[in-house]
């Protein structure tokens, strides 16, 4: 088992490197550093100001290697050849030194750490409630498959999926918080049980947003399972419909469910950008939206890297779950 986990970890290394490479190419090769500086200093910033800003933030180094011919404007003659943005980025990401924000030079690592708890408080309950509800509804659909109820629920799921998330959020906020005053419309406070007051509405809305697509996905998984031969055998043996559904379909479908649930993991930590922005929750999603509004490239860059690390971590967890559930995988 340990050897299996170790092997999986080794496989993840090229992917992590690939993510670093994509981030670097996108932000420094494709995007220009002057744009980053001007996003903070204003479009009319003088060249000297831009140069000073770039120097302060360490963006004035050569791009890939510090060679004399690389670029005269960013040239650092006295520095070693590895003093370049590319190697700096790779090194910083490897040791989790996420740097400072472009906007006000606050440490990004600190911001991400403090944003994790509020994000988790919103998304973890939303995910569990959503999973439970979606699996239950999907099982109902599979139980009454090819009936009017099944068709109706399929259409209902399509309807739920087709509404813009903003519409859900705005209408829920206006109806439940502003008109009925059941919940606070905005804000967040970590104060023990009192926090729940702030969580109820965002969690509910988030659950509803993903419900349509989740039910559809789980239904197709269960339908795939119900077409298998062993189901026919079970039916032939005289297992009743409910037994088939819960014992066979749900149990075997659960293996496929693991993948999907873990695929939600980055969403879980990153929170929902829209939800956190609307409800004023100081989580990671809200952090990214604020960074977008302030054109803060450094925070977005760090978020891309952290987000993909979390995804890869989730993938590793899936593999471990698989290996636990099915010993054949460990050996291959």
């Amino acid at each position, binding site marked *: 088992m340990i050897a299996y986990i170790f092997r999986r970890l080794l496989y993840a290394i*090229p*992917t992590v490197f*690939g*993510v670093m490479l*994509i*981030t670097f190419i*996108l*932000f420094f*090769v*494709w*995007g*220009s550093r002057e*744009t980053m500086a001007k996003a903070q200093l204003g479009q009319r910033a003088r060249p000297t100001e831009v140069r000073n800003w770039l120097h302060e933030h360490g963006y004035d180094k050569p791009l890939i290697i510090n060679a004399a011919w690389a670029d005269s404007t960013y040239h650092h003659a006295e520095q070693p050849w590895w003093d370049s943005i590319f190697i700096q980025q790779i090194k910083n990401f490897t040791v989790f030194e996420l740097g400072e924000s472009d906007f006000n030079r606050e440490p990004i690592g600190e911001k991400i750490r403090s944003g994790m708890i509020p994000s988790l408080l919103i998304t973890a309950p939303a995910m569990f409630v959503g999973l439970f509800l979606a699996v239950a509804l999907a099982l109902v659909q599979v139980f009454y498959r090819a009936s009017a109820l099944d*068709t109706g629920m*399929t*259409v209902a799921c*399509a*309807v739920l*999926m*087709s*509404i*813009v*998330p*903003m*519409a859900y959020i*705005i209408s829920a906020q*206006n109806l439940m918080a502003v008109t009925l005053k059941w919940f606070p419309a905005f804000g967040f406070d970590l104060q023990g049980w009192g926090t729940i007051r702030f969580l109820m509405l965002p969690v509910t809305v988030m659950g509803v947003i993903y419900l349509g697509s989740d039910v559809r996905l789980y239904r*197709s998984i269960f*339908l*795939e399972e119900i*077409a298998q031969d062993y189901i026919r055998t079970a039916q032939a043996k005289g297992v009743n419909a409910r037994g088939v559904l819960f014992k066979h379909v749900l149990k075997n479908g659960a293996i496929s469910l693991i993948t999907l649930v873990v695929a939600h993991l*980055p*969403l879980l930590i*990153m929170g929902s*950008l*829209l939800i956190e*922005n609307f409800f004023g929750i100081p989580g990671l999603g809200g952090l*990214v*939206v604020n960074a*977008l*509004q302030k*054109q803060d*490239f450094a925070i*977005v*860059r760090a*978020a*891309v890297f952290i*987000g*993909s690390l*979390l*995804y*890869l971590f989730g*993938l590793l967890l899936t593999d471990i779950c698989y290996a636990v559930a099915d010993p054949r995988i460990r050996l291959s």
Partner: protein
Amino acid sequence: MADQSIISKLNQCFEQPSVQNSIVVLGLVIIGSVIWLGSKNEQWRIAFRRFRHDRIGIFAGVVISIYLLIGALEVIRIPTKEGQSESLLKLIINIPQERSYSAPFAKLQLGQESEFAAAQSSGDPMKIQSAERYRVVGTHILGTNALGNDTLVETLRACKTALLLGGVTSVIYIVLGTLFGLAAGYFRRWVDDVITYVYSTLASIPQILLLVAMLLVWGKGLFSIALALGITMWVDLCRLIRGETMRQAERTYVIAARALGQSTWNILIRHLLPNVMHLVLIKFVLGFSGIVLAEAILSYLGVGSPIGTPSWGVMIDGARNEFSREPLVWWNLTAATTALFGLVLSLNLLGDALRRAFDPKRS
């Protein structure tokens, strides 16, 4: 740097009516050739026969055609007198512009009713004269927005943006996904390894984060959105096509073609491509709805369509503060959301219907 200005140049290019017209013509050619080729394919004909009895699918198709028609009316531009041109849609629904917000069917501008009444009751001819500017000139079924433009017209105009964006994005990701998927599935070995590595790396970045990062670097613009969505969306299609190609490549017809000395290109294009094309069609229809939704979300996050573009995302973004106004301005958000909902729902239903038609056992 040079590359960045290419994106912004393409963004400006995308705004040109002539470019939009050529995109529409290209789109029609592609749709026509797919239908023509599909009508010769046995599998597609069987699917079409099944589809004809699918009432939900037919209904969704009709709704999408209406959206296409409205979009076409907005694309066609008719020169007016002053050397300017105006879209056909605006000429058909010719409604005068107001000064600011007005409610649906309102006779007066929003929030000015009491002032108008006060001026009327004062009996002062000067005041009555000046209060005339609060009158709404035309009839606005869905009211007007902050600039006094008719909301219904704005909503209908946005069809064009959604359809053009969806079309261009689809072309980008379908070409990438199909080519790489076929290559990875047929050649296997190192080709497969390289392609799998590239797409699994891309897929390991959460989609929304990659999208906002690309759009932040490239700047707002319709082509930016199309390219960013194209880059994130080909992964799914590629995975799908790769798996199906692997399955099909084992089948006897491919082995027979190879034994008969068919070139690799012929096997890929003449034999494998038609047999995976139905997956592309279903993915195209369902993916289109995703693109329309994504444009709205990205515009709301401030990295999507530039302000001033007729788009549902921009309308929803603009309606952000309208709900906290007194009196409440609900019509802009409602109109944009409803129009978007109609298109996305029809696309989802059509996609489901196509899937049922092509693969009735598994849905």
